[in-house]
């Protein structure tokens, strides 16, 4: 049995006279014990999807199962089974750290002691501040407390909505290390993010844009389906180089990636010759040209264009 099954979920919002489609018939499955990433920018439909799966929002049509239970018919059962960490901090700001954790344990008819092993690693980091009100914690501390509260009833599926947004590179790395430890304890994790580089940390990912799923696969699988050779180019005067490459008739796309431009040519063009010609014609210095393996962001952009 799959931990999560989503079949053709559609969700529209009516705002005054206009209607906005948040999810346009989304389907995928998540296996037990997986870290499954929902990767996409703001407004892609990630939060609507999570709210439907955690029974907080009704879909207009389609079907979804969590742990074999239907999100509409069996919503009460599901609420006891899942842990949910929303994107916006939603613990009680005027309760202390330990009071918040105690509160969530009690609601789920359990105790902190019973499942302490699950949260121990994370809770120990905030324990020095356990008498402080949650509203007075720093962003990183709030995030750790919210994760503890979502875990204290030993959920079988954990939903994390953009847990690393606005978090610096070091804290993001630490957060992912925590997720691997939870996975090792057998918890299925669905995590959404707008940071494309986090896709490679998931077992499988769904790339989502404007309510459509662009692709579902392992990160390696998505990368292996990149349709054409990808070139990385670097030289002095990168901005002019980008414009010259974009103006070349054989160019399909050219985007800056850190210190390189990533370039894809139309079918039938080899690439190296075209780039050499652009470099010679524009008299660029210190030019470097090479084919590279695409990353998830390259794939996302190629899929967005289809």
């Amino acid at each position, binding site marked *: 049995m799959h931990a999560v099954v989503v079949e053709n979920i559609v969700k529209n919002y009516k705002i005054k006279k206009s209607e906005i489609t948040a999810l346009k018939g989304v389907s995928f499955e998540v296996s037990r014990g997986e870290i499954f990433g929902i990767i996409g920018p703001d407004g892609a439909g990630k939060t609507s999807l999570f709210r439907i799966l955690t029974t907080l929002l009704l879909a207009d049509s389609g079907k979804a199962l969590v742990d074999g239970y239907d999100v509409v018919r069996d919503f009460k059962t599901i609420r006891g089974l899942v842990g949910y960490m929303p994107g916006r901090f939603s613990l009680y700001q005027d309760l202390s750290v330990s009071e918040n954790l105690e509160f969530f344990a009690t609601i789920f008819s359990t105790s902190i002691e019973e499942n302490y092993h699950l949260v121990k690693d994370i809770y120990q980091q905030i324990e020095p501040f356990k008498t402080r009100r949650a509203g007075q914690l720093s962003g990183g501390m709030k995030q750790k407390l919210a994760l503890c509260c979502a875990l204290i009833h030993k959920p079988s599926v954990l939903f994390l909505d953009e847990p690393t947004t*606005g978090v610096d590179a070091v804290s993001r*790395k630490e957060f992912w290390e925590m997720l691997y430890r939870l996975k090792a304890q057998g918890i299925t994790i669905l995590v959404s993010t707008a940071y494309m580089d986090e896709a490679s940390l998931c077992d499988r990912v769904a790339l989502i844009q404007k309510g459509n799923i662009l692709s579902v696969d392992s990160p390696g699988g998505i990368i292996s389906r990149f349709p054409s050779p990808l070139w990385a180019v670097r030289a002095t005067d990168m901005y002019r180089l980008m414009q010259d490459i974009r103006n070349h008739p054989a160019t399909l796309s050219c985007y800056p990636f*850190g210190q390189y431009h990533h370039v894809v040519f139309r079918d039938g063009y080899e690439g190296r010759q075209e780039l050499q010609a652009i470099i010679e014609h524009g008299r660029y210095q210190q030019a470097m040209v090479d084919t590279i393996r695409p990353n998830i962001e390259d794939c*996302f952009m190629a899929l967005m264009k289809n």
Partner: protein
Amino acid sequence: MEKVIVARQLTKRFGNFTAVDHISFDVAKGGIFGFLGANGAGKTTAIRMLCGLSLPTSGSATVAGYDVYRENEKIKRNIGYMSQKFSLYEDLTIRENIRFYAGIYGLTDIRIKEKTDLLLKQLQMEGQENSLVRSLPLGWKQKLAFSIAIVHDPALVFLDEPTAGVDPITRREFWSLIYEASSRGITIFVTTHYMDEAEYCNRVSIMVDGKIEALESPLQLMNDFRAASMDEVFLQLARKATRVVE
């Protein structure tokens, strides 16, 4: 070379906590300066001092030629500011937002009209000027917010995580606008959590525990730290942090 920011031993203490600890750096006119650091490293406090919103405890700084202690009102008039958290008024239209900000910065009616036309054309938003900002996709809002932040052609614009959450193509379109502004001589001072964006900057500073621990071109930093990307440089430096942010 002309300097838009000159900071010397700039320091800010809150009680016995030193948020910004004797930082010194220059930013050259027209450059793109990346201001990086982990959460809690002191970036926001430093930016607030440079924008004239918070007085330093000690040290000195000039921004666009004005002193941060005595001329903070002049600084505010000569800089632009944009962050992901606050940018535009959602319940005003595109045209009204442009008019509002341009008016605050003291542009004449004729100039406001010229700027509005230019900006709508540049952003390919002609025909949509009477739409509410609320109805725009995030990426469009961010591009509009940036153009409005420099509507008065300031010497310098502060961008605080301007691209958080936008899709990868829009993120790159946004950076094209940054390059364009920089080529017109507007200095860019930008913070970001995307380390590939750090590589687009001419120079980068990395703050750790209130101090500037590195200040170089991205290429030089990658050489110095024997790193293949700015992400690695950042991780090596930020891991040294010892201060507990409560």
